[in-house]
């Protein structure tokens, strides 16, 4: 056989082999495809609800390993949204809330009219609060929360503030719970609520006057005890730093301005007496199936910046009726009232400005007592719509000695405010609110203000406590 013919023969053989291999491969592929299809069908059958009287698949360990059969176990791809809500990997819940107002007022100085740090500051628009909340379980023992707020002041400057950052125990024995870090003090009812969950555009006057524009909050620790009563009741004890602008009636520097007629110095902590102590007791009763009452009493005790000390007392009452057939929480009627008393023991202060050995200003120590209360009623008349009315009143027990020298102090002068409003929640994640304020200040006369507030919330909607 010539060499060429032999080669051709081999080539033919190789070709044949290759063809066979290709056919084999295609057959295998078809077979596999068929098997895949069959398996897919089986899975689909398996996932369908069983027809007729079904036999329930008993979950072997319902609270542990078993996963919802249909929670589609789809691999994550970079284009998927990061599951922060309702996902299986919930390390950190993140939310952002933006709260704004627009409006106008007859008051010459709006900052003097409002007492809250988040209240409208000017005619036109105010960025009241931009709040980022990070929240989640730290480990099997603690959960943690941080609320970082940004505001834009009248000059247009943005600033960042750590409103809260704390950890809290999950299940201590003896019905105890500990919270530590920076947090809103458990004093009264509204002080612990963030501005976006308030029922009015602004803070009640008494809270701004006694607890401060940003509310009473500081670094510290709190222990609470769920008491073994047949009804709900809880006892709190908070120990916090008593200095800084968020401890307004205590060791507050007051931006260098005199506080109740005297310079206020933060000083430093020498012993335990220099801390802020806040006991609180709260109890709740179900009056009927649809009516709930929550009543609390609080005290706050600590030194102040004038060399004396401050005592704050407060009582709060919250009553709510909610229809037993409510649709998304409506209709409801809620009434909330807080009354507070501040006893400020101001230290003596003498000033010899020209150095002639004679004090131009000589103030002895005095006790300045102030009162304040607000009461508000809300009526949620149909889904998403709430009409509200709030009355505010703050007044001093009597004029201070320093006021007879320097004139009446606007931080103590009696004043009242009446605020009707109407709120519309298009959904739980947005809000529009129109509020009118009638202000009567005994030192300044009457003022009228109209504010339109709007809010949006992104991310996990933190459920609010009752």
């Amino acid at each position, binding site marked *: 056989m010539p060499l060429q013919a032999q080669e051709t023969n081999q080539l033919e053989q190789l070709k044949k082999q290759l063809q066979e291999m290709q056919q084999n491969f295609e057959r295998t592929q078809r077979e596999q495809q068929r098997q895949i299809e069959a398996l897919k069908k089986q899975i689909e059958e398996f*996932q*369908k*609800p069983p027809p*007729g*009287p*079904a*036999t*329930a*698949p*008993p*979950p072997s*360990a*319902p*609270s*542990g390993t*078993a996963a*919802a*059969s*249909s*929670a*589609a176990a789809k691999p994550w791809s970079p284009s998927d*949204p990061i*599951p922060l*809500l*309702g*996902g299986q990997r919930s390390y950190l819940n993140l939310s952002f809330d933006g709260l704004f107002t627009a409006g106008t007022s007859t008051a010459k100085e709006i900052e003097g009219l409002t007492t809250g740090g988040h209240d409208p500051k000017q005619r036109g628009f105010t960025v009241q609060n931009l709040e980022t909340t990070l929240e989640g*379980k730290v480990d099997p023992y603690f*959960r943690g929360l941080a609320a970082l707020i940004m505001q834009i002041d009248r000059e247009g400057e943005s600033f960042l503030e750590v409103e809260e950052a704390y950890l*809290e125990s*999950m*299940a201590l024995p003896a*019905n*105890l719970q500990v919270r530590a870090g920076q947090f809103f003090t458990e004093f009264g009812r509204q002080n612990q609520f963030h501005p976006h969950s308030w029922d009015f555009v602004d803070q009640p006057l008494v809270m701004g006057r006694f607890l401060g524009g940003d509310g009473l909050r500081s670094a510290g620790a709190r222990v609470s005890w*769920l008491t073994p009563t047949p*009804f*709900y009741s809880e006892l709190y004890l908070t120990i916090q730093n008593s200095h800084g602008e968020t401890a307004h009636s205590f060791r507050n520097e007051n931006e260098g301005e005199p506080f109740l007629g005297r310079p206020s110095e933060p000083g430093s902590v020498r012993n335990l007496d220099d801390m802020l102590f806040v006991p609180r007791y*709260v109890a*709740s*009763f*179900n009056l009927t*199936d649809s009516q*709930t009452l*929550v009543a609390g009493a609080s005290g706050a005790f600590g030194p102040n910046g004038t060399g004396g000390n401050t005592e704050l007392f407060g009582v709060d009452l919250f009553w*709510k009726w*909610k229809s*037993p*057939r*409510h*649709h*998304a*929480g409506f209709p409801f009627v809620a009434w909330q009232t807080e009354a507070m008393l501040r006893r400020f023991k101001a230290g003596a202060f003498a000033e010899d400005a020209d150095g002639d050995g004679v004090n131009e200003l000589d103030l002895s120590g005095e006790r300045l007592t102030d009162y304040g209360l607000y009461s508000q009623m809300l009526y949620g008349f*149909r*889904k*998403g719509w709430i009409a509200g009315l709030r009355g505010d009143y703050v007044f001093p027990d009597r004029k201070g000695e320093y006021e007879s020298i320097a004139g009446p102090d606007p931080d103590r002068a009696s004043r009242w405010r009446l605020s009707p409003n109407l709120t519309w929640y298009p*959904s*739980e994640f947005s809000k529009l609110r129109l509020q009118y304020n009638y202000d009567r200040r005994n030192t300044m006369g009457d003022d009228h203000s109209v504010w339109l507030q709007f809010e949006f919330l992104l991310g996990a909607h933190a*459920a*609010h*406590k*009752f």
Partner: protein
Amino acid sequence: MKTKLIRHGSDIRHWKFIRHSLERVLKMPFGWNRPLACCGRLPACRNVRRQVAAENGLAARSTPFQNTLLAFALAFAATTAHAKLNVVATLPDFGAIAEEIGGDKVKVTSIARGTEDAHFVDARPSFIRVLNQADVLLEGGLDLEIGWLPPLLNAARNAKILHDAPGHVILSRGITVLEVPSGPVDRSMGDVHPSGNPHCWLDPANGKVIAASAAAAFARLDPPNAAFYEANLKTFNQRLDAKLAEWTKRMEPLRGLKVVTYHKSFSYFLERFGLELAGTIEPKPGIEPSPTHINALIPRAKEEGVKLVLVEPCRPRKTPEYVAGSIGAKLLILPTSVGGNAKVKDYIDLFDYDIGQIVEALKP
């Protein structure tokens, strides 16, 4: 006399107390190396007692005083050990099933009422107290209770029912969840539950899965009564199976019937009995109906031949009445939960009532 007290699960404190009291009264130290007193409830304990009796003839050698004391101590331990399981259910439906399974061995408290919107239950402080005392928490999951259960659980500080504790039972596990969004979800689509429709108890077949989960949890936490729970589960399943066959037969002629609902609360019910959802009165989950949506819904529903509008007791009536009137369909206010009206007292009543109403309304 050498004794050993056997402890069961969480009874350790009681046993320690009993041992300490015995030591004090009898003024003799009890060693831990020899078994003597035991409740005898578990096979292991019964063996121990037999062994002890054989070894040192306890009854013969104990004084009457010692025997009385031991009897008292054991009775005390037994009563505390046999205290009812304290079960808290988020919804009355879960509570009703828990009662079927637990019988007189459990004390059941339900948080939400049958008439109210289960997504918007108030976190009343009294529930903190209830959850603080709970041995078992039965929740639906799938974010149904997300708006009110977390703050209650935080405040209740009860390790037994924290997430992943043996006492925390998520009842939707093991259920084929409907309407799980397949694509991306955001809030422009309304308040869509990212894990799927949570109203799963409205398929009576799911009632069996829920009951099985509850029975497994009760048996896990109260092993001496495991057989009791197992037997109750069997009885409940038998009853439910018989009823399910009856309901299926009654609903059979209505298979393929098109309905409009307010919210997607009835999806599991419709799926079970072969009814079809032709549209909802709310345009998107949790969003109030707009005139545009209603004006689009009516002709569409008319065209599809919708005969029934189903609405939960908590929804406003005006729009559903208008929709039903405009398309010539019957409007039914149907409870979706036990306690939704006075006639619906347990889980089986719920379907008896709802199916009775539907069949009655569509009688020619």
